[in-house]
C-alpha cells in the first residue's frame, strides 16, 4: 500500500536505546548533526553508530542530507505520529479482548 508506514520497521528501530537516544538528540537537542558528531557522543564505534543511523533511515525516522563534504542527519519525528496506527492497534486489541471476555463468560 502506498504511504503506509512500515510499523514493523518503526517499532524495531525504536526498540533499541541507542537509536532512541540518537533520535532524541536530533529531535530535541540539536536540529541536525553530522554522523561524526553523533558518533562522538556514544561509546560505540563509528561503524556501529552508522549502522544504527541506517536502520533509523530505513524506518523513515531520520533523513540524511549531504552538504559539501559532510552528511547531516535530521530527525523525522513525524513518523512516530501515526495516530491512525494507534487507533488500528487499539481497535484490534479491544476486538480481540472482547472475544476473550465472551469466551470467559461462556465457560464460567
Amino acid at each position, binding site marked *: 500500500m502506498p504511504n503506509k508506514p512500515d510499523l514493523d520497521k518503526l517499532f524495531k528501530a525504536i526498540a533499541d536505546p541507542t537509536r532512541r537516544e540518537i533520535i532524541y538528540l536530533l529531535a530535541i537537542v540539536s536540529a541536525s548533526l553530522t554522523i561524526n558528531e553523533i558518533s562522538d557522543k556514544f561509546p560505540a564505534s563509528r561503524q556501529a553508530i552508522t549502522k544504527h543511523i541506517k536502520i533509523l533511515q530505513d524506518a523513515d525516522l531520520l533523513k540524511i542530507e549531504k552538504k559539501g563534504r559532510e552528511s547531516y542527519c535530521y530527525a523525522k519525528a513525524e513518523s512516530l505520529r501515526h495516530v491512525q496506527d494507534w487507533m488500528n*492497534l*487499539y481497535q484490534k486489541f479491544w476486538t480481540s479482548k472482547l472475544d476473550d471476555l465472551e469466551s470467559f463468560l461462556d465457560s464460567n
Partner: protein
Amino acid sequence: MENTITLNKKFNHPIEKVWEAISDQEKISEWFLKADFKAEVGYNYTFQDPKCTVTGEVKEVSKPNQLDYTWIVGGTTTETSVSWILTQDGDTTVLDLKHWGIENYADAAPNFFASFNEGWNKCFASLDEYLSSIHAQ
C-alpha cells in the same frame, strides 16, 4: 469524536456477571491482563502482562452499568480513557466500550524519548510482536 474507538458487543449473560468480569481483579486477571484493580473511584490500578504494563485511575463506578478509568501504557505519559457501559437487555447484556484520547499520542513522541525505561522497551517489543502477528494473518 473522530479519535474514539467504540465497540459494541452483546453477551448472553446477565449484567451482574459481566460487571464482575470487568471489575473484579481476579476475573480481570483471567481473561484480560493480570490486574491490581479495585472498582473504587480514585483507585490507581495496574494491568500487567509479562511485557507490558498499563496503569490508570478509576474515574467512575456505577455498579453494574458504568466503569471508567484512565489508561496509560507503561513508559509513555499519554493519558487516554476507557469507558465500559453495560445495559441489561432481558437475560443478555449489551456492552458499549469506548476508548478515547488516542489522538494525544500525536504529541507524545518527545515524551516517549524522554523516558528511556524498561517498561517502554517491553511495551514496544510487545507491540511489535502484536503487529507482526496481525501482518502475518
